[in-house]
């Protein structure tokens, strides 16, 4: 049986500052080595200053993943030398001397399957290495410490996965959950990284390190299973080793360094006293936690009668559910949900498009209300939405500028209906005996008005004129 376990690193990108200093957690907009200070550079004499918000957010993640949360947490030093590590040790957490990480064991359901969480730990991200030079011989390594000290949560699972598909489903659930909690933006480059360990029946465990995105994680696991199976089928034994994911070639490569032999000499970080996370704190955090995805979904279904599939799409994407929450009323909820999941999705399907979208919840509310009151037809609403996403203009302006409004003026509609009646004598005759045919005539009116005739008024006028 194939067994896959994951170690997922998620930056807490929504925090203001780094884990142990006041430099920005969002290091991405800075010139290299400008988002740094004596603390995150590990200068002599500097001391870590624990970001309490990071502890709270990490605890929230642990609670959201149904993990146990200890009364007191501690930090440890993981000692090793690497150029991206300013102090040559990393401040992290572990559970070998008792349960002192922010999260202990927990369970998360992926469909019917239980995935066991081993632990969740809060730690600092190292800096970033940038390699320059054409060949290995004249390669130089540049270090950018802007990232050093960024708060990172490591989520470790048991080897409960049996195939890449389960891995992907889990990752989808996890990244939706982290986004919904408002702790992380998984779409940011480098915000989600992972290590995986993979073993097939009769083979040793192989660890794959350095996988830079969730997308690649699934690929890496798939590649590794295939590699191991092909070795196995040729009776070549699978050695226990650490491999690296080469994200350019999309393959795993054996690491020359013996990382598994490293002795990290873990010991308690004396500069950070134990942090008590008592019952009261947990209660408070629980009350501050955003509604879970599953509870949102249930609410959408039961309160607004939104179809399950639509409710699922809406609730699992924080961008959509936030829009929905702010735009909907009891009356227009279904219409708002409908607009988001049918028309809006295609317009904001990437991070960049979302960032540049000018659409505000009040726009959505107006569009939905206008559809319901017959001011605008669905097809026109779609065009209006496109325009608003692009420009952020008021709906009324867009309607008049693009002439999208419904024709509801009775005399104007009467004229059009007259011409349809004269053009379709046969259908008019039929309609007198067969009420269904009247819809055909409404369609003709719509054709002439490019879909903008108010359907209710048109129907009433038609009925009057025919009888």
């Amino acid at each position, binding site marked *: 049986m194939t067994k896959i376990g994951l170690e997922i690193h998620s930056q807490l990108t929504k925090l203001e500052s780094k884990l142990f200093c006041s430099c920005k957690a969002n290091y991405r907009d800075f010139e290299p080595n400008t988002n740094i200070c*004596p603390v995150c*550079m*590990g*200068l*002599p*004499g*500097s*001391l*870590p*200053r*624990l970001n309490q918000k990071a502890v709270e957010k990490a605890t929230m993640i642990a609670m959201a993943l149904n993990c146990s949360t200890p009364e007191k947490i501690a930090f440890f*030093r993981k*000692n090793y*030398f*690497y*150029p991206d590590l*300013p*102090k*040559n*040790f990393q401040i992290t957490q572990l559970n070998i001397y008792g349960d002192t990480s922010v999260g202990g064991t927990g369970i998360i359901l992926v469909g019917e399957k239980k995935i066991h969480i081993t632990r969740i730990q809060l730690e600092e991200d190292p800096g970033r290495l940038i390699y320059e030079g054409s060949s290995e011989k004249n390669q130089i*390594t540049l*270090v950018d410490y802007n990232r050093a000290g960024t708060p990172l949560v490591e989520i470790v699972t048991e080897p409960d996965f049996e195939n890449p598909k389960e891995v992907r489903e889990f990752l989808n659930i996890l990244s939706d959950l982290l986004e919904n909690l408002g702790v992380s933006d998984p779409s940011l480059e480098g915000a989600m990284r992972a290590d995986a360990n993979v073993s097939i029946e009769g083979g040793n465990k192989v660890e794959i390190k350095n996988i830079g995105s969730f997308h690649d994680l699934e690929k890496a696991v798939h590649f590794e299973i295939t590699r191991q199976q092909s070795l196995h089928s040729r009776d070549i034994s699978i050695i226990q080793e650490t491999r690296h994911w080469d994200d350019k070639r999309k393959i795993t490569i054996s690491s020359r360094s013996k990382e598994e032999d490293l*002795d990290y*000499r*873990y*010991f*308690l970080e*004396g*500069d*950070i*006293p134990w942090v008590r996370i008592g019952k009261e704190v947990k209660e408070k955090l629980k009350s501050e936690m955003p509604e879970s995805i599953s509870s949102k979904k249930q609410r959408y279904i039961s309160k607004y009668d939104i179809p399950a599939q639509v409710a699922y799409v809406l609730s699992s994407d924080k961008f959509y559910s936030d829009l929905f929450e702010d735009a909907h009323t009891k009356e227009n909820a279904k219409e708002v949900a409908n607009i988001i999941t049918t028309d809006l999705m295609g317009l904001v399907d990437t991070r960049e498009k979302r960032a540049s979208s000018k659409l505000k919840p009040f726009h959505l509310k107006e569009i939905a209300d206008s559809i319901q009151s017959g001011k605008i037809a669905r097809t026109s609403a779609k065009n209006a939405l496109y325009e608003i996403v692009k420009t952020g203009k008021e709906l009324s302006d867009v309607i008049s500028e693009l002439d999208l409004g419904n024709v509801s003026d009775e005399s104007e509609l009467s004229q059009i209906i007259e011409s349809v009646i004269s053009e379709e004598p046969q259908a008019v005759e039929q309609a007198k005996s067969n009420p269904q045919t009247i819809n055909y005539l409404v369609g003709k009116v719509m054709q002439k008005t490019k879909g903008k005739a108010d359907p209710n008024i048109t129907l009433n006028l038609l009925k009057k004129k025919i009888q």
Partner: protein
Amino acid sequence: MNIKISALQFTRDVKSGNISVEDFIAKTMEQIHNVDDNLHAFLSLNEKAVDQAREIDKKIKSGGKIGQCFGMPISIKDNICIKDTKTTCASKMLENFIAPYDATVITKLKQQDAIFVGKVNLDEFAMGISTEFSAYGPSKNPWNTDYVPGGSSGGSAVSVSAFECVASLGSDTGGSVRNPASFCSTVGYKPTYGLISRYGLISYANSIEQIGPLTRTVEDTAFMLNLIAGVDPNDNTTVDNNNEDYLKDIDSGIEGKKIGIIKEMIGEGIDPSVLSATKNAISKLEGLGAICEEISLDMVKYSVAAYYAITTTEAGSNLARYDNLRYGYDFPVDGYEFNSYIEKARKKLGPEVIRRMILGGFVPSAGYAGKYFLKALKVKSKLTRQINDAFKKFDLLISPTVPILPFKIGEKINDPAALFLIDINTVTANLTGKPAISIPYAISNGLPIGIQLIANSMNDKLLLQAAHALEKTVKLPEVPI
């Protein structure tokens, strides 16, 4: 003008207009120039000290707001960061490290108009008890320059003792303030762990060390403590002292206080003159109304071993950052692979630092941690329990600060184990986080002897009151320089 005055006397004299700060600082700098070639307390001097003094005089004349130090000349151990100033830790590794920020204690003293006359010598990275392990050469004991001044804050003690400043800040990891204070006949104080911010103190063994003042009198120590103690958002291990005024009621005396004499600290290997000084101190305390009784803390036997297991582990980690990549000395990286560069760069570290870092790699390593490091932590917690129990019965504990007299320069440098054992009386306060003070008590054959008092955590005020009471019974000759 007399520069041989206490810190409190200095502030009174400046306030009353008896002396000008400029004159005092100029005279102090002159004293440094006269004696320091011989004593070698200083690693670097503040060339602007006299200018700064003049500014303070101007401020006083114009009636401006003046901080409580009134331009007091203070020396700073060279492992405490002063912005834009070289902070070498007496190591070649940090030969060119210029601190880009102030330690919290420095910020606080600057706000009080202190003048830092210079950075003073120490054993490299504060590892040692004689300053012989300074990469820039040893300091010498002003009482007899053939002898060590103690360490690691040797430069601090020498500078206070030889009137090269009025007060000094050192750091105490296993006795590094108290030991040189004892050897040079000054007051040396290690506060309750967390009472003084360590932000800007270059870590050696961060879980047990503290910055502490070295002064001429106990009152001066209380004065310094008032200025630098308290919670610091930059040091998560600091504790709230509710703005305690340590000078207030310092004359309270020790009548009725119970004092435990730690048996394990006056036993085997103690110099007879040290023992008799200790006995004399005990009878003086009894004369002041204290009740003294012997007590056994048998974990003290293991304290030095535990101390070295813990400090070397932390040192191995704390000093790992000195890979010379981000700061340090001039040594280009071209042509080196990462690990081989570090290996080569770290050759600048001195023998004692290398010894402790090798131990620090071994003691907590897989397969040995249980035998050494974790066992040391057990000793630490048992010792803490024992001393806490002792404080249920006693208000204070007493011992000689160091069981022996100052030794000659070069006498013990090749016997690390013998040097380690000299820490036996001082490491307990560090391992248990308790406040401890050494006060000058006697002179034997021209060499100083200090007495140590230890109090329970956050009883620093009581400790200073008792030390002050004992100090008043002592009359010592002036240092022969």
